[in-house]
């Protein structure tokens, strides 16, 4: 039960709400002073990242807290809303409950890191930079909050906070079809969060907090079946209500991941969003879906998860194969990367569905790696787009000689996303496959999914060949190599990708005990094997 307070306020609250402070400062700055706006935003995000590192330093790898409150660290638990009951309404208690465990620690680190990278890459935005930076910082808070909050209500609040700035960032600073993309993104996610809201309320009304006696949103107590009122909607195990609730939660989070049928918003959002926003969208936002599933669906409806395990694996496989095939057919470089991130998220879903330690730790590690690798890929797209203002792959050629340093980083980015050993992508994919393969019924699905590696190699190399080899069309003769700022964006990512590829233990050790605890908790919740029915 580590406690870390700065100026009396817990570190998690600092990390979550520092960007809001930054936003206020940025809003107060005069409009013309663009330089100061940019640098203050960067300063804030850097400070947040430093805090994340401090958090990591004090993080104790041996503690595992999925459903046991004593396993969590840096806990901040205060009653936020406490309306005493009158007449026919009973008492409403909502807690401000924040904590971190093996599941959320990697995500906090990733958000901090990607936040800094995105802010640096936002320096190239020229249209009303002040509004942009303010929204970016608000978005940062939304993301960080989702990963650290353990009260379902607070989780949902941050989940919604993330939506609004994203809509404006795509809608105002986006490409030609930005309005369509922004609206589609917004409505799609909102549609999903409607489902989450329903389940949240269902849980709330069928729960009884041991201490306060009133209903509760506290995720930890909701996980313990004893706290669910006997006659209530979601009590018991494997009742149709609980399965339906799990399915609703699944849809809500699947839209965010995105999983196959709900994914069409992603390519549009990416193609239209400015580079920095694509980086954040692919880097962090997609992880909120899978993190939500791990924390909420697995925690609250463990037996439903086992029951639907096979279906989840099938979704994962479809994602991988479907994403890769679609990516191969794209002409727009950014859309290709968008589809490739669908494929990579497919590995996460496959790993998660296996319910084995290797599988789930592979999934979480893939979430982290995908964050860094896809961020790198989108920055690569951004670099080209800033210079050539076109993303059509066929218009390029022979860039390797023209921009050798850029080519070096592209090689690292591309081969990392192909899952080449020695780079971080491989380990998470390998672990996910090993975990999924060890589960008898999912064996065939895993074998089919391994095709994904070949398909990824195919379309990545094809793109590499079309853009970087061959002769340079004369219209691109003016292209310059990387600027210092772009170096600052790409090199740290490359270093992380290579370091984690060679020595992944820092991240893996962080999550190991929590993952074991999760697997133990979920598999004990029901006697069914994964092939439930």
């Amino acid at each position, binding site marked *: 039960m580590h406690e870390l307070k700065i100026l009396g306020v817990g570190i998690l609250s600092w990390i979550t709400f520092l960007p809001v402070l930054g936003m206020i400062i940025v809003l107060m700055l005069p409009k013309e002073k663009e330089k100061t706006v940019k640098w203050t935003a960067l300063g804030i995000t850097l400070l947040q990242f430093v805090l994340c590192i401090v958090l990591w330093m004090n993080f104790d790898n041996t503690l595992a807290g999925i459903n046991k409150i004593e396993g969590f660290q840096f806990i901040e638990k205060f009653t936020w809303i406490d309306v005493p009951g009158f007449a026919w309404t009973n008492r409403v208690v909502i807690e401000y409950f924040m904590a971190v465990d093996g599941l959320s620690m990697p995500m906090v680190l990733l958000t901090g890191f990607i936040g800094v990278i995105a802010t640096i890459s936002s320096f190239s935005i020229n249209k009303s930079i002040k509004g942009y930076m303010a929204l970016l910082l608000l978005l940062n808070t939304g993301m960080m909050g989702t990963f650290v909050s353990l009260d379902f209500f607070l989780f949902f609040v941050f989940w919604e906070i993330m939506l609004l700035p994203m809509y404006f960032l795509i809608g105002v600073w986006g490409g030609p079809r930005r309005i369509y993309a922004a609206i589609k993104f917004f409505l799609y996610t909102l549609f999903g969060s409607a489902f989450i809201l329903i389940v949240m309320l269902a849980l709330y009304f069928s729960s009884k907090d041991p201490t306060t006696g009133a209903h509760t949103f506290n995720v930890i107590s909701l996980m313990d079946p004893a706290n669910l009122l006997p006659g209530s909607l979601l009590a018991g195990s494997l009742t149709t209500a609980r399965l339906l609730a799990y399915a609703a939660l699944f849809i809500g989070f699947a839209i965010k991941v995105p999983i196959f*049928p709900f994914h069409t918003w992603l390519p549009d959002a990416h193609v239209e969003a400015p580079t920095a926003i694509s980086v954040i969208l692919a880097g962090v936002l997609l992880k909120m879906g899978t993190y939500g599933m791990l924390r909420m669906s697995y925690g609250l409806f463990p037996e439903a998860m086992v029951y639907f395990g096979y279906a989840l694996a099938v979704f994962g496989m479809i994602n991988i194969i479907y994403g890769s095939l679609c990516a*191969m057919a794209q002409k727009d470089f950014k859309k290709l990367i968008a589809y490739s991130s669908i494929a990579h998220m497919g590995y996460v879903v496959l790993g998660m569905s296996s319910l084995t*330690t290797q599988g789930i730790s592979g999934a979480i590690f893939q979430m982290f790696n995908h964050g860094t690798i896809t961020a790198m890929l989108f920055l690569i797209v951004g670099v080209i787009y800033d210079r050539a203002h076109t993303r059509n792959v066929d218009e390029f050629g022979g860039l390797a000689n023209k921009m050798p340093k850029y080519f070096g980083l592209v090689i690292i980015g591309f081969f990392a996303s192909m899952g080449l050993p020695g780079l971080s992508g491989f380990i998470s994919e390998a672990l996910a496959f090993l975990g999924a*393969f060890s589960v008898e019924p999912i064996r065939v699905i895993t074998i089919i999914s391994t095709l994904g590696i070949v398909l990824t190699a195919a379309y990545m190399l094809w793109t590499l060949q079309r853009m970087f080899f061959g002769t340079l069309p004369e219209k691109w003769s003016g292209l310059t190599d990387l600027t210092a700022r772009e170096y600052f964006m790409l090199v740290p990512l490359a270093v992380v990708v290579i370091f984690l590829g060679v020595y*992944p233990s820092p991240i893996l050790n962080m999550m190991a005990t929590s993952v074991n605890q999760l*697997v133990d908790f979920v598999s004990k919740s029901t006697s069914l094997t994964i092939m439930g029915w």
Partner: protein
Amino acid sequence: MLISISLLILFLPLLSFLILIFFGKKLPRQGDWLGTAILIICLGLAFYVLLNTGASDKFNAIYNWIDLKDAPGFGPVKINLGILIDNLSAIMLVVVCLISAAAHLFSTKYMEGDAKYNRYYAYLGIFTFSMLGIVLTDNLLMMYIFWELVGLTSYLLIGFWYENPGPQYASKKAFIVNRIGDVGFFTGIMIVYVFTKSFTFSEIFAAIEAGQLTGGWLTAAGILIFCGAIGKSAQFPLHVWLPDAMEGPTPVSALIHAATMVAAGVYLVTRTFPMMSASALTFIAYIGLITAFISATIAITQNDIKKVLAYSTVSQLGFMIMALGVGAYTAGFFHLVTHAAFKACLFLGAGSVIYGMHHEQDIRNMGGLKKKMRITYLTFLMATMALSGVPLTSGFLSKDSILAGTMAFAGLTGGFNYIIPILAFLSAGMTAFYMFRLVFLTFHGEPKNKEKFDHVKESPLPMTIPLIVLSVLSFFVFFSYNPIDANIGWFAKYVPAVQTVVPEAQRFDFQKGTTEHIVNAESPASETHGENPAAVEENHSAFTEAVHHAHYPAMGLSLFVAGMGILLAFAFYKWKKFSADAVAEKIKPLYTFSLNKWYFDEFYEGVIVKGLLMLTQAFRWFDNKVVDGVVNGAAYVTERSSSGTGKFDNSFVDGLVNLIGSVVMFFGLIFRKIQTGRIQTYLAYVLFGIILFYFIFRTM
């Protein structure tokens, strides 16, 4: 001690890569001397390691890489990386370092003046590092990691001149085809890991011995791991990438596509030989046989010097794989080592010819180089004789023991397997034929291209030294004193056959009825058979006995076949008895079939690549139209219904309101007329009101 040396051997090339990639341009001569020096040091160290490792010593070092603590339902999850030095890896160390050093030395002249010179040496460095990684590793996962790294480096080296389209396409093809093989390999690893809960070879074999992995899954694991070898060593279905890989610089072809990388596949099968079940071995044997035969027929008609050598490599690899398939474990590995030496010499010889003829690769307009390039000619001839299996050469020893192995295997198992020795001998004959055809067309006869021929002169020293060293190594003396019988050589004793751990049911019948323990061949007693003491293992002697019997007939037959091949080559190209073109005319369809590489490329391009692209277009259409369609459809429906309710609202509800309005208006107009403005009318109305009230109140 040996461990630290081998780690040094492993990481020195990586060091050269890092130095050259970052500071290459600034170093004098762009750091090629650095690369070559490092490799020569590695070679020395490798020899030291070889000399100090006994046949049965096993030096092992384990480092923990990933530790996921204790997984529920699985046990402790520890993924370790380890170094293993035993007889196999020691020899391979020497082979890899030798060939890599030769390639480094050779390239100093061959690649001189290239724009990306330092990057070339950097890539060579990292290739050697990955290859050594494969050789030294003690577990499957680490082997897979270096396996893919080797794939990456071959991609980079094949596509070194990525300006022109040829290398671009070849490098991509190579990587993807390798990747297909790797996927099979990884699936095999997964099966093994899931059942034996470990990656390390020793633990795997112990677990299989203990029966944790048996039946269909064991065979599947064996075949899938062999898929890795198919991809990497260019075996039958996936051999298409190796001939295209000739687009890369020739020293690269020599290093990678003749000796080391392609041998990795064979090395993998050798490493995992004990776990291969009978059906897996037969599968391997037949794949090897098919590859050998097909590529031999194709090599006959090729006109590009490097393409001929490429197909001959594929064919020889087929031989090695077949040898392992039939159980001739030592012969297979022996052929790998000898082949590495003389094939590298052939490729470097071709390189010096190309260098001399200023990048002319078509043998039809070469000829008569015998006089101008004496050393190249002599070394080339020596290596060709070794390859064709002419006596007194190392090639003869290794090929002969393989052929003997196939005959023994056919003898023991009989039936359909007799086709193996038949096709094997046929391929051996074809090999002799196309190699001597190559020699005559390039070195003998009149120069067909006058002005190119005049500029030809012997290649400079750094190119000829490796040639000489490698060709000398092709002599038999380095491997066994008796030129006829390889078994008494140091090699056979150093690399004894390995005992299979496969459960009883899945062994060849001639291997059945044996005790269940790993034979750890101590230093074998030097009987004439040079085998382990009979008491230890009956099955062992069953196969060796058969091989021993097959030894002399096989040698006679192989001599006869090789002789015929050479004779035919002489007849066609030296004495011009029959004109090659006339024969080609007569068997026109066969000739074109072989010339176009059995149409494999066209088949793959047409069916698989085209099919895949069509599939992707279908998926793209599906994604845009159907899934997006559903979303936009939903949007359309809501939009339509909203405009519907909008219209309804306007027409109906609004209508009501307007209706009321118009009614009031209507009455308003009527009443307006009442206000005539004349006072009297108002008075009249008042009176009228009074009358009404009168009547109303009267009734009250």
